[in-house]
């Protein structure tokens, strides 16, 4: 315990030499984690590619069941939230804690809007019996449009992809609430805003994945 | 030809498919042995020769040696390229079925191999083939993955549900070879073997003629043949002994206790339902492991099986 240097600022953990090293480490760790997230979704994208190559007509047919308008609105909402989270980081860098909190609140609100729209989309589909796996039981009207025998596979993939993405959004909301509370307690300033920065990175990735999901699932011609 | 590692391989009964494999097997073993002996000698020699004498032993600083390192990178690389090419050509040979091959359909299911010949002859776990003629086995699976492996012929392929795969061979002597299932498929996986019986070509024709032309006999005889053919007796004994499924002996008219607590008397409709949709009503104490026979057995065949079951008292 010899060298617990007294000149360590409070936010620097004992095993780091200084604030810079801690910030760099946290950022790098987050980037590595994001690479792993990309591969995690990569598996799902792979399954998507394989099945789309096998059943191209299924995908163009089934995509018609998805609501392009609400999907588009959700895309705009998420891109907007990416902007506000970037503004939150900017505020933190400039030591504007009020701005940081407001931007975080807007981001949380937008994320919630995304989830609410998602909820209504799911709700509508489940109502029509377009449910994953063993709950697959479409109404006759749906079956008339969606005659493909493997239609359940498309929606298996749809629910997996959007479901896992939705979980990531929920985790993001949780993280942002935590940041909001910590910001309120005055934990962040222009010297130390690492958690805001790396949560922002995470949020951009969640946004980015949706930007891929939207055209791949909703906009197939 | 006697080679050092002959003891490792089973008898070669289909030289057309086995020879390239065996040649490469021996080559890799022999090269590996040379390297392994070299490595071992070096290890032992160094261990004695350079044994530590004192804590202050001087050791030279040898950081690397490009010539040496390139040599021991390139030589193994060349050897492995030879091995790759050799293995690849042998594999192409295993994929290239001769045009005049005799085709036999083999279906794997838990835990039997059903065999169908061109003229309607059917066998279970016995594959009759002619000597000296290439034979193509077309594989499919009814339930989970299985794998068709004949050590004597050095051929193997998975039987995958929903697609066809194949192996070919040409047996050069009359006799029997064993077939193993090598893809794990559940409880009786290790009992899922079969026999390949090689006949003289004339004998094979005769055998085919006797067994061909579809089922014959009374409904009870046909039912019995079907039960054997479908491998039902693998799990359902016909003599009352315990198995993975309820015994057929005395089944008809028996009161069965079901897993959900209710009881019913086994009648024609129950047996029919249990064949087509086995999971619908499970007898207490047994697992739902039977594949459904919907689309595999016709109504007439099911009727014949029920007639046969009635005779097992």
């Amino acid at each position, binding site marked *: *315990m*010899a060298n617990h*240097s007294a000149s*360590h600022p409070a936010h620097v953990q004992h*095993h780091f030499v200084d604030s810079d090293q801690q910030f*760099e480490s946290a950022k790098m*760790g987050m980037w*590595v984690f994001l*690479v*792993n*997230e990309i*591969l*995690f979704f*990569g*598996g799902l994208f792979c*399954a998507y590619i394989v099945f789309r190559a096998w059943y191209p007509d299924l995908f163009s047919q089934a995509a018609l069941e998805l609501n392009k308008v609400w999907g588009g609105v959700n895309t705009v909402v998420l891109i907007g939230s990416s902007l506000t989270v970037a503004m939150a980081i900017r505020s933190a860098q400039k030591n504007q804690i009020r701005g940081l909190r407001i931007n975080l609140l807007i981001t949380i609100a937008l994320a919630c809007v995304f989830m609410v729209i998602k909820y209504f989309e799911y709700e509508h589909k489940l109502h029509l019996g377009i449910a994953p*796996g063993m*709950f697959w039981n479409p109404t006759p009207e749906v079956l008339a449009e969606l005659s493909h*025998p493997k239609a359940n596979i498309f929606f*298996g993939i749809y*629910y*997996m992809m959007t479901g896992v993405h939705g979980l990531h959004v929920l985790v993001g909301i949780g993280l942002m609430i935590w940041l909001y509370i910590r910001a309120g307690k005055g934990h962040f300033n222009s010297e130390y805003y690492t958690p805001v920065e790396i949560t922002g990175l995470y949020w951009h990735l969640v946004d980015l994945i949706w930007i891929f999901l939207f055209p791949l699932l909703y906009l197939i011609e | 030809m006697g080679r050092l590692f002959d003891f490792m391989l*089973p008898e070669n009964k289909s030289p057309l498919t086995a020879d*390239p*494999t065996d040649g490469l*097997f021996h080559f*890799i*073993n022999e090269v*590996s042995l040379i*390297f*392994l002996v070299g*490595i071992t000698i*070096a*290890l032992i020699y*160094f261990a004695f020769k*350079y044994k530590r004498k004192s804590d202050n032993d001087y*050791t*030279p600083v*040898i*950081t690397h040696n490009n010539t040496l*390192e390139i040599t*021991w990178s390139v030589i193994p*690389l060349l050897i*492995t390229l030879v*091995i790759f090419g*050799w*293995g*690849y050509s*042998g*594999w192409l040979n295993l994929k290239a079925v001769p045009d005049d091959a005799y085709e036999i359909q083999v279906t794997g299911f838990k835990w039997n191999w059903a065999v169908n010949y061109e003229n309607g002859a059917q066998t279970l776990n016995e594959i009759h083939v002619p000597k000296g003629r290439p034979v193509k086995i077309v594989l499919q699976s009814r339930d*989970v993955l299985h794998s068709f*492996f004949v*050590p004597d012929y050095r051929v*193997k392929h998975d039987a*995958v549900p929903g697609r066809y795969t194949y192996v070919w061979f040409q047996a050069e002597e009359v006799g029997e070879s064993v077939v193993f299932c*090598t893809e*794990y498929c*559940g409880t009786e*996986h*290790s009992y899922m073997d079969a026999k390949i019986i090689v006949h003289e070509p004339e004998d094979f024709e005769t055998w085919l003629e006797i067994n061909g032309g579809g089922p014959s006999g009374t409904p009870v005889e046909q039912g019995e043949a079907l039960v054997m053919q479908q491998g039902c007796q693998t799990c359902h004994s016909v003599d009352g002994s315990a198995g993975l499924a309820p015994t057929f002996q005395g089944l008809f008219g028996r009161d069965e206790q079901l897993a959900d607590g209710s009881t019913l008397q086994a009648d024609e409709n129950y047996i029919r339902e249990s064949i087509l949709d086995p999971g619908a009503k499970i007898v207490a104490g047994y697992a739902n492991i039977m594949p459904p026979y919907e689309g595999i057995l016709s109504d007439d065949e099911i009727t014949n099986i029920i007639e046969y079951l009635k005779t097992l008292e």
Partner: protein
Amino acid sequence: MAAAETNNMTTLQVKRFKPSENPTNTYLTDEKGVWAWMTTVDHKKIGLMYLASVAFFFAFAGFLAIALRTELWEPATNFIDADTYNKYFTLHGAMMVFFVLIPSIPAALGNFVLPMQLGAKDVAFPRLNLASFYIYVIGAIFTFISLAYNGFDTGWTFYTPYSSTGSTGVIWVTLGVFILGFSSILTGTNFITTIHKLRAPGITWDKLPLNIWALYATSIIQVLATPVLAITILLLAMENIMDIGIFDPAKGGDPVLYQHFFWFYSHPAVYIMIVPGFGIISEVISTFSKKTVFGYWAIALSSLAIAFIGFLVWGHHMFTSGQSAVATTVFSFLTFLVGIPTGIKIFNWIATLYKGSIDMKTPMLYVFIFLFLFSIGGFTGIMLGALSVDIHLHDTYYVVAHFHYVMMGGTLIALLAGLHYWWPKMTGKMYNETQGKIAAILVFIGFNMTFLPQFIMGAQGMPRRYYNYIDQFQPFHQTSTIGSYILGVAFLLILYYLVMSLIKGEQAPSNPWKSRALEWQSTSPPDFHNFAHTPVVINGPYDYHKPMEEFQLGLAVEHNGHGEHHEVETEETEKA
């Protein structure tokens, strides 16, 4: 040596810190009590907790192996029925792979050694490190819950459609493996960041110990491959829970796609297990021959090459599965390429021995055993990569013998080498050298007796995962069973003398092997912060031609921030 120059050409003022031989204040005395251990963020304690867990699972899965071998003493039923047998071999495989081999070297030994070799006080994210451990524990708990639900008998590979029939046991174990994956991912993330950002002054990339290079390559594989396993296993769980149909042919899915997904992780996972073993071998072989490692860059870069090519060879597990002919050809070709860097390492290690000063202590004995067994594992791997031969050998005991030679003869023997090598540092106690050597020889004999016969019966056609077998294979099975008992005895002996060493072993010196590596320049056991000073490194970790004093340097005056210049005389101090 008044001043040391580091990579960014800053001049640092240094002095010699000679580690105390009788440390009074160590990480073991610093925090006491069960609660302190369970909530510690100290990488050394977390490493030891992993080590204890790995040992527990190894004993459990090893016991299952003994039961399996006993059952195989004769064909058909011996003392357990077929379903029990199938559950035992599945559990043996799944536990050995997911709970023993994958965390064994990186998470247990790596956690302890990596920050010390970097001269860091801890890993970059200590709390995350503790979280990884608990995620591992939760994964294990899920697996045990599955045993309560009648277990699982799918084989550790969980091939569909056999595994997707909705059995409750399979759901629990797949969720367990899913959770466990995150432990591996987070450890990998932690290590990569630590290696990049937390190196002590002077440790440039060309002065990294080869163990660090190996752990670096391993961490890259963990981060890139494990998420794919996670999603695969999640899809499989969903298949079981609600039949989504992606892998089940009855619902339009494809079982071969599952195999591609599974092996995309599980082949690189083989390198997660073996590459850190390579790191240990490099460390031990250099220390006990008192000599610079031959071909430092060849060994360091071949680890990365293996990590990279290892991602491109997964299809060689599927030559008989019905994948496309082009894929099969390419996968076979690349498989041979991955053999080359492995061969290079073997030759480099042997060349390191040349003109060395070889001290055949227990860790070194294990290295020799490793070199012999792993070579056999490698050669038989070449055999299995050759297309036509693999058709014959696939899914036979030949494959079983091959991967035991690589995984047990390679990874576990390397783990034993590392365990004995770092034992004095970890515990501050010496183990009994004679008993150590006897156990090593018993392991060697037992291992070969268990697995050599399996090559023969496999080539003769004995399929794996067989409860019953035809009579001609019985002599091989019986030899193998006797061998497994010898192995069992050897491991009991190791357990015995290691426990005895904890109870009444003699006090270990700070550097019993006279190594030049940084982790040995601390007390045994180390200080809570690893070093009482900030170490400064001016030589490579294997520079045995330089005097010991040059390896015991540290900052004379602690400071924060970089780029400060000091020019002050050094003084020799001895830490109390």
